[in-house]
C-alpha cells in the first residue's frame, strides 16, 4: 500500500487480525455449517433407527462409495464457482476409463493411465477454450460434449466393457486396515484432492481470482484479472480432477463400462449444490462439496439398510437440493441490498 502514514487504526479492525483461528473459522463458516449439520443429523437418525449403520465398517463403506462422484464433484465445484456448469464431466470420465481399460488390456497400465489423463485434459481443455476464449455458454457447450463423448465412448468400445486386472489401475480400491476397518487409498486420495483444492481456493491468489470471476466478472476484469485465463485454468484443473475420478472408478468397479456412470454429471452437481456452493458462482467451496457427496451416499446407504424403498432416497435427495438452493437464494437476496 502506498498511502500516507497511518492514522489511528480502528481497534475493532485490528482485533480481527490477531485472530489466529481465522482459517478454521472461515472453513466452518456459514457455507459449511448447514451441510455439516445435515450430515450429522442424517447419521444420527440412521444410527438410531438401524442397528448396522453406525459401525466402523459401514462408515468406511460410505466413504468408499462416495469417491467417484465425490471426486467428479470437486472438479464440478471449481467450474460452478465461476458461475459455469459441466454436464460432460461424467462422459469425460467414462471415455477416459474405457481408453485406459482398452490400452491396459494388452499394454502398460501406467501408459494407459497417462493416456486417460490426456483424454481428460484434451476434452476439458476443449470445453475451456470454447467457454473462455469464445465466450460460449457453459451449459450448451458441455451439453453438446456430453452427447458427443457418450457416443464416442460407445463407438470406441462397440458398447462392450473391459475387465480391469492391473494392480496399478485398481490400487485405489485397496487401503490401510486399522482395527479391521479398511480406509481405501481412493478415500485418502479424495481427501487429499479436497485439501489441495481447498488450499488453492482459499490460500492463493488464483483462488481469489476464481471466486471473483464467478462473483462479478466485470469487476474482476476491471481490477486487471485475466478472466479468460482464469476460466481456462479452471476447466483444465477440473479435467485433471476428472482423470483422478476415472482412476477411482476403475478401482471401485474393476470394469471399464461405456454405459456406466450415466447420471454421474447430475449426481456431481447434486453434491455441489447440497454442499452449499451457489450455482450463480462466487460462493461455496470444496469442503462443502465433500460433505455434500457424503450426504448423498449416506441417504442411499441408510435408507437401504432401514429397508425403505429406494425411491424415497431420490425424494430425500431432491428435497435437500431444493433446500440448499432456497438457502442460497435467501442469502444472496438478503445481502444484496
Amino acid at each position: 500500500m502506498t498511502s500516507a502514514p497511518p492514522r489511528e487504526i480502528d481497534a475493532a479492525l485490528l482485533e480481527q487480525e490477531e485472530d489466529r483461528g481465522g482459517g478454521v473459522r472461515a472453513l466452518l463458516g456459514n457455507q459449511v455449517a448447514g451441510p455439516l449439520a445435515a450430515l450429522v443429523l442424517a447419521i444420527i437418525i440412521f444410527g438410531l433407527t438401524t442397528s448396522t449403520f453406525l459401525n466402523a465398517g459401514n462408515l468406511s463403506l460410505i466413504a468408499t462409495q462416495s469417491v467417484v462422484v465425490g471426486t467428479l464433484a470437486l472438479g464440478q465445484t471449481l467450474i460452478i464457482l465461476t458461475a459455469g456448469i459441466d454436464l460432460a464431466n461424467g462422459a469425460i470420465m467414462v471415455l477416459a476409463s474405457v481408453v485406459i481399460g482398452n490400452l491396459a488390456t494388452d499394454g502398460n497400465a501406467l501408459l494407459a493411465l497417462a493416456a486417460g489423463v490426456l483424454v481428460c485434459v484434451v476434452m476439458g481443455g476443449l470445453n475451456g477454450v470454447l467457454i473462455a476464449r469464445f465466450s460460449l455458454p457453459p451449459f450448451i457447450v458441455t451439453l453438446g460434449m456430453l452427447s458427443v463423448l457418450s457416443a464416442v465412448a460407445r463407438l470406441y468400445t462397440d458398447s462392450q466393457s473391459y475387465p480391469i486386472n492391473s494392480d496399478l489401475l485398481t490400487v485405489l480400491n485397496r487401503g490401510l486396515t486399522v482395527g479391521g476397518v479398511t480406509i481405501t487409498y481412493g478415500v485418502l486420495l479424495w481427501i487429499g484432492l479436497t485439501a489441495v483444492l481447498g488450499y488453492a481456493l482459499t490460500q492463493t491468489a488464483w483462488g481469489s481470482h476464481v471466486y471473483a470471476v464467478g462473483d462479478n466478472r466485470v469487476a474482476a476484469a476491471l481490477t486487471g484479472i485475466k478472466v479468460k485465463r482464469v476460466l481456462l485454468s479452471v476447466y483444465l484443473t477440473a479435467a485433471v480432477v476428472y482423470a483422478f475420478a476415472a482412476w477411482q472408478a476403475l478401482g471401485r468397479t474393476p470394469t471399464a463400462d461405456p454405459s456406466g456412470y450415466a447420471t454421474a454429471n447430475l449426481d456431481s452437481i447434486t453434491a455441489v449444490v447440497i454442499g452449499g456452493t451457489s450455482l450463480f458462482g462466487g460462493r461455496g467451496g470444496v469442503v462443502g462439496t465433500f460433505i455434500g457427496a457424503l450426504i448423498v451416499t449416506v441417504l442411499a446407504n441408510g435408507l437401504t439398510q432401514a429397508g425403505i424403498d429406494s425411491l424415497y432416497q431420490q425424494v430425500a435427495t431432491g428435497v435437500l437440493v431444493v433446500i440448499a438452493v432456497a438457502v442460497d437464494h435467501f442469502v444472496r437476496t438478503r445481502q444484496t441490498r
Partner: protein
Amino acid sequence: MTEHVLEARGLTKRYGHVVAMDDCHFDLRPGEILAVIGDNGAGKSTLIKALTGAVIPDTGSISVNGQEVQFRSPLDARRAGIETVYQELGVAPALDITQNLYLGREQRRKGILGSVFRKLDKASMRHGSARQMADLGIRVQSIRQKVETLSGGQRQAVAVARVAAWATSVVIMDEPTAALGVRETNQVLKLIERVRENGLPVVLISHNMPNVFQVADRIHIHRLGRRIAVVEPAHTTMEEAVAVMTGAKSPESLQTDGGTA
C-alpha cells in the same frame, strides 16, 4: 508545464465522420480535485478513456509527471499510477473487504511458502487494508466483512479505497455517486476530499453540479470534443457553468483559470 501530474495536448479521435475529440487539452495539478463536466455526447468519456488507456488517440500527446507516455491498454495507464473508479460498482460482493482491496494484486508469503506454495500473506493484507480504511476514515465493523453486507455507499467506499491504495499519481472517478442516495453520496464526497488530503489528485467526472461545486478545486468544462474553459467554483456560479457547457453562453464571458482551449 511540469507542475502538472497529468497533461494532455492536442488529443484527436475520429470514428468515421464523428469527431469524438477535437484538439483537446487537459491539465491536472498536484493535490487538486478537478471536476470534468460536459453535456451528454460532448466527448468526456472518450477523453477519460484516452487518459486511462482504453482508447488510443489518433494524434496528440499525454504526459504523466512531465514524462510523455503512450498508453496502449488500461494496464499501461495503471502501471503509470493512474487508477479508475467506475460508475458500476467495481467490487466482488461475495469477497471480503481485504480480498477486494487486494484483488489482482495479492501479496504472497515470503520464502518457500510464497514462491513454491503460492500462499497468500493474509495477515499482511489485512493489516494493509485496515490501515487503508482508517486512512480514509471509512468505518466498517471488520475488514473481514463480505462486501455484500455493506451499504451501497460503503461498497463504493471500498472501491475508492482500493483505487486510492494503488494509485501513485492520479485517481479518476467516473460518476462515482450516480447510483447512490443523498446521505451515501455525501460519504463518498468526503472520501474524495480525504483522498486529496492524503496527497493524491483526483479527476471527478460527474453530472451532479452541486456535488461538483461542493468538492472541486477547478472545473474542466467539455463541449464538442474539446476543453472550452476551466473555471474555479469560487468565481463562477453553477448557472454560468451550465450555460457554457450547453453552449448558451460563450466561455470568454467567464473568469477562467489554468488555460483555455
